[in-house]
């Protein structure tokens, strides 16, 4: 029984780290650009499909395909920021949300046209045989997803803490006007933030797509879950998003043990509880 719980908890932890990755991108876009990005899941989906396309159709090495896919989706995000969101900087909440919904519909429909509705598997060089680590069994692909996500989170933290641009981003997070006063270039900052957010979502999609499969509508639930995580952790908080993702993942993992049909409801119930008792999230920034 204990082994079973440990197994479900660890599975949940790995999926949860993935949620963190996607949600951090979302919370950064929100914190810096003040945009609730309803197309976030579609960038996640695109990451999965780009990796699939590069590895399957072009026969690229899986690891190369993963990296190229992430960069490509970041470029797509950058393009949308330049084409759409620059013009909406002073627009209402409604306009920017509608624009992201439009982008989401567009990307999902394009994926549907290009790759069709059926789920596809990303070809990866991992053995399907599970490795025994202590009380739990893990496949290589899960271990790889786990390590890659951890490495990305650490790199992101170092980038934000140590580099000049990262400092500028943190400044804009805390005080938008003051950041402008000291001469931070908003255009570059916003374009970079959106590209980075899209890229993080893409990595999430490509990694989880390797564990399961990729299909055009996979982004819908991903967007909702990313928002759940962001609410759990407090809107605009990176630490909150990281821990929120882990909480959601583990709660879902343990929820699967009890009643797998209701697994996806766990997060939504958590959100309602949080909003009733801790409306600013668990980790208010």
């Amino acid at each position, binding site marked *: 029984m204990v082994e079973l719980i440990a197994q479900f908890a660890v599975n949940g932890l790995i999926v949860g780290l993935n949620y963190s990755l996607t949600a951090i991108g979302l919370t950064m876009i929100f914190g810096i650009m003040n945009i*609730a990005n309803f197309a976030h899941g579609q960038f996640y989906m695109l990451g999965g499909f780009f990796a699939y396309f590069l590895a399957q159709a072009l026969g690229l090495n899986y690891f190369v395909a993963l990296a190229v896919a992430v960069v490509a989706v970041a470029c797509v995000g950058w393009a949308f920021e330049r084409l759409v969101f620059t013009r909406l900087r002073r627009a209402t909440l*409604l*306009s920017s949300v509608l624009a992201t919904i439009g982008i989401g519909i567009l990307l999902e429909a394009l994926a549907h*046209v290009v790759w069709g509705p059926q789920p596809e598997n990303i070809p990866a060089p991992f053995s399907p045989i599970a490795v025994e680590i202590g009380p739990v069994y893990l496949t290589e692909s899960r271990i790889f997803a786990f390590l890659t996500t951890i490495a990305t989170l650490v790199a992101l933290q170092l980038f934000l803490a140590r580099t000049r641009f990262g400092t500028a981003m943190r400044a804009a997070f805390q005080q938008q006007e003051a950041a402008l006063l000291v001469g931070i270039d908003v255009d570059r900052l916003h374009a970079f933030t959106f590209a980075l957010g899209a890229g993080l979502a893409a990595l999430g999609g490509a990694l989880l797509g390797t564990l399961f499969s990729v299909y055009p509508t996979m982004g819908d639930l991903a967007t*909702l879950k990313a928002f759940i995580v962001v*609410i759990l952790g407090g809107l605009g908080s990176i630490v909150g998003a990281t821990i929120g993702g882990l909480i959601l993942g583990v709660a879902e993992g343990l929820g699967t043990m009890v009643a797998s049909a209701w697994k996806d409801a766990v997060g*939504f119930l958590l*959100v309602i509880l949080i*909003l009733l008792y801790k409306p600013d999230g668990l980790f208010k920034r």
Partner: protein
Amino acid sequence: MASSSADRGRSRLRLVAWALGVAAALACPWVLGEGYHLHLVIMSLIFAIAAASLGLIVGYAGLLSLGHTAFFGLGAYVSALLFLHGGVPLWGGMLAGATVAAAVAFLLGRAILGVRGHRFVIVTVAFAEIMRLVAYNWVDVTRGPQGLPGILAPTLALPGLGAIDFAAKTNFYYLALAVAFACIALLSRIARSPLGWGFLALRENEQLGESIGVGAFRHAMLAFVIGAFFAGIGGALYAHYLNIVSPDVFFFSNTTMLLVMVVMGGLGTIVGPVVGAFVFTALPEYLRVASDYRLVFFGSLLIVAVLFFPRGLVELGERVAAAWRHFAGRR
């Protein structure tokens, strides 16, 4: 006086427009026949109710609710369950569905309308998703993904005249027309009442509104509950027209579609969402020729509209009207 004659001219024009509109609405089944086109008009009428009610919430009170389809679906499910288990016809189902939708909106509103803004937006999405999961997984009551079939349209017995069976498409059309007309008339009455002005005050400047006695929370709640009530009516109509309801009514894409109708039709009006409902019910159907590219086109259209026509079709109409007046005035 010039202005009074212009007023008289305008009111005469309005009368003619009304007469034409009523005549067109009544003649619809004869012109379109019993087939697919009439079906689209009936669907448009049903969505017009839902879109107009969302228009009150989004366009007037400025609350971006992304869970409106949850109230539509609640109305559909409640009336369906009442019909299947208690034999309650549409009339009772409509009232019950709308009441339940409004009551749920009240409870949800109490939890989340205190702070409006991004969190409200996100929670409304999550709420609709919860409703979908419940409809999907509570198989004992909802039959899960299979949905609830066999919800029949009502009959209306008229003393001395026999009974009208609304299962016939033409008859249902007149029923939908009457219900939609009543709902939309009520909604625009509300929108033009002091309550509607309060909603606008809430949207434009909350602090200023509070200072002249417009309670922000109270008005937000009223808009949310009234909107949910009418969405519930639309949902009940939908269930009894299609004879089936499934968890798909709770899909986020339905909310998106309603929102598109509202925003593209025109924010801050009731007629805009109604026009939007007709355009965006018919458009995707006729675009079916280009099936796969339909949503590509749709998404692009949405982005372009947000960038260049933020006030929707009504803005387009106003511009045309202004150009015409300018032209007529110069003559």
